């Protein structure tokens, strides 16, 4: 076991998979010489060479499309899109290309590529560098979407994503890179895509959260405990495919659910989870499912404005209490 930062755990996963499989290569803006804006690829160009760690021009459309077809023809690209806010530039390659070919070409091709990106607010980066656009990619059949919150899951899920034969969108959060956690460096420790993680067991209300919101949900659980409320925190971890069984088991136990996602509310990722709970757990529910999300507006810049809109532990507490009222 080793204590390491989230960014270091990702770096370890990349190094391990590039060592294991020479067809794995990296491309993205500033990932080579500089080691990535968030230092996830630090040292990898020196270790694996410029052929396998490629600094790209600022050409998200083309590089995403190229990653898709490189994956179709024998390599395993790991593409870094610096901010999730830039995903709209990649969407043709994801929605009209990557997501359709295995089906419409009747299984003639597979596309083992990973698109890593990071989103979310709290860093004062403004409206074009702070969004969580999870719903934009999770909406698309044919794309898998994961969002690890712990360093251990970051490594284990990235390794699984790289080995997976199908496209994986790998969502990180800019405020997670410096968080620390135990990583079992002595083991492969692959984390399967499609399994949620029970971050904290509880009996009164289920809080289903994604990415950095899991940390806020755990803080909320601490606060709720002070009021004698036992909250179960589920880290959804795999946004698509969704671990429906874990959600059902939890809601059957607590009869209440709060969904927390940093994206927008309307047609948002939290809405999908809420609808799924309504469909599958209706008889178990003692209260309407609550959503805690960003309001439907751009992320503002100034600290008090941004803090006002981001989901946090206090908002999650209030939502949990509403389900118990």
């Amino acid at each position, binding site marked *: 076991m080793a204590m390491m930062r989230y960014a270091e755990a990702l770096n370890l996963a990349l190094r391990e998979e590039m060592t294991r499989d020479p067809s794995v290569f990296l491309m993205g803006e500033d990932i080579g010489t500089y080691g990535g804006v968030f230092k996830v690829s630090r040292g990898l160009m020196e270790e694996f060479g410029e052929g396998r760690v490629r600094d790209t*021009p600022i050409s998200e459309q083309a590089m995403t499309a*190229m990653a898709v077809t490189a*994956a179709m*023809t024998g390599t395993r690209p790991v593409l870094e899109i610096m901010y999730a806010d830039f995903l709209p530039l990649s969407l043709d390659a994801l929605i009209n*290309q990557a997501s359709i070919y295995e*089906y419409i070409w*009747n299984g003639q091709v597979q596309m083992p590529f990973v698109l890593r990106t990071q989103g979310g607010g709290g860093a004062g980066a403004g409206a074009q560098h702070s969004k969580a656009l999870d719903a934009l990619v999770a909406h698309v059949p044919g794309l*898998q979407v994961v969002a690890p919150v712990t360093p251990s899951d970051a490594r284990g899920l990235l390794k699984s994503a790289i080995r997976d034969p199908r496209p994986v969108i790998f969502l990180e959060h800019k405020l997670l890179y410096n968080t620390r956690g135990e990583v079992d460096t002595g083991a492969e420790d692959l984390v399967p895509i499609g399994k949620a993680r029970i971050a904290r067991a509880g009996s009164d209300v289920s809080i289903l959260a994604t990415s950095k919101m899991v940390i806020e949900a755990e803080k909320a659980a601490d606060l709720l405990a002070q009021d004698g409320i036992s909250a179960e925190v589920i880290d959804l971890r795999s946004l698509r495919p969704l671990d429906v069984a874990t959600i059902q088991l939890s809601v059957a136990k607590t009869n209440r659910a709060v969904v927390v996602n940093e994206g927008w509310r309307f047609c948002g990722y939290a809405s999908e989870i809420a609808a*799924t709970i309504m469909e599958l757990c209706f008889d178990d529910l003692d209260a309407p499912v609550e959503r805690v999300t960003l309001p439907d507006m751009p992320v503002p810049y100034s600290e008090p404005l941004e803090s006002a809109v981001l989901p946090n532990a206090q908002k999650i507490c209030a939502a949990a209490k509403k389900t118990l009222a």
Partner: protein
Amino acid sequence: MKNTPSLDDQIEMYRRMILVRRLEERLGALSKEGRTRGPIHRCDGQEAVGIGATAMLTDADYLTSTHRGHAHYIGKGVDVYGITAEILGRSTGLCGGRAGHMLIADAARGMIGGNAIVGAGIPAAAGMALSNQILGNGRVAMCIFGDGAAQTGIWHETMNMAALWKLPVVFVLEHNQFGLTVHSDRQGPVADLSIRAKGYAMPAEIVDGNDAVAVYRATAAMVDRARRGEGPGMIEAKTYRWEGFSTSDMGGYQKPEDIAAWKARDPIEIARAALLPAVGADRLDEIDAAATAEVEQAAERALADPFPEFEPCAFTAAYSEVL
């Protein structure tokens, strides 16, 4: 002359152009009868580009195409019957009826694939070339795209990256003068779009797109260069689209005198005239008849084939339990 196709290659290109012409004529008729679905995009008069540009590729090389890809499919060696059955929506089609006429792929032939998002086939080929370079497998990738696609931003991004990284990819611009209904002179300020290659330090050559041998020669030079690791090249093949954009096109925007002038330069007739002294009319007539029969038999066979039955896939499973 260097890169001149052999006589056998020229005969094969002639045969393939006839296959494409007859296939499209048959598809046009089937479309009118309501036996195909959606629009059919024909390339009558442009066959020499798709056939000439692909004739030197091997099955291991990759090709990406457009929504107007019949000549590209046939050029890459894809089976006429498999194409026909796919367009007729049959289970025996190359993609089991899931793809349709614009999106056909045959991975075994390196044809991956048709693409109906204008411009999207361009980075697709460059990505395959990137894979080739990393794997060091000696394969080349080619994209054939139109003058409409040459006005997309992604073409420029891709030309830049391909040249920067010396990717083994060849850009073949099939300049048929129309982006849907709008003439190319109303879509951009330059007539010769390949002058843009200079901005990416990439060699380019303009050729007569109605002469399969000329297309072959110029493209073969770029393919050889790419295969040697010297980087990408571009071909601009000037041609003309005789038919409308698709079977749903109401027409009225193409000048009759232009159509007549280009029909007088039918690529099949140009190829036939070039082959006549060496091969003779009888042999060429035999080739023509055999190609015509092949298309006819493919259509008859495919029309008798069953339609596919819908089966749930991972995507349609409840709550995406599988994927």
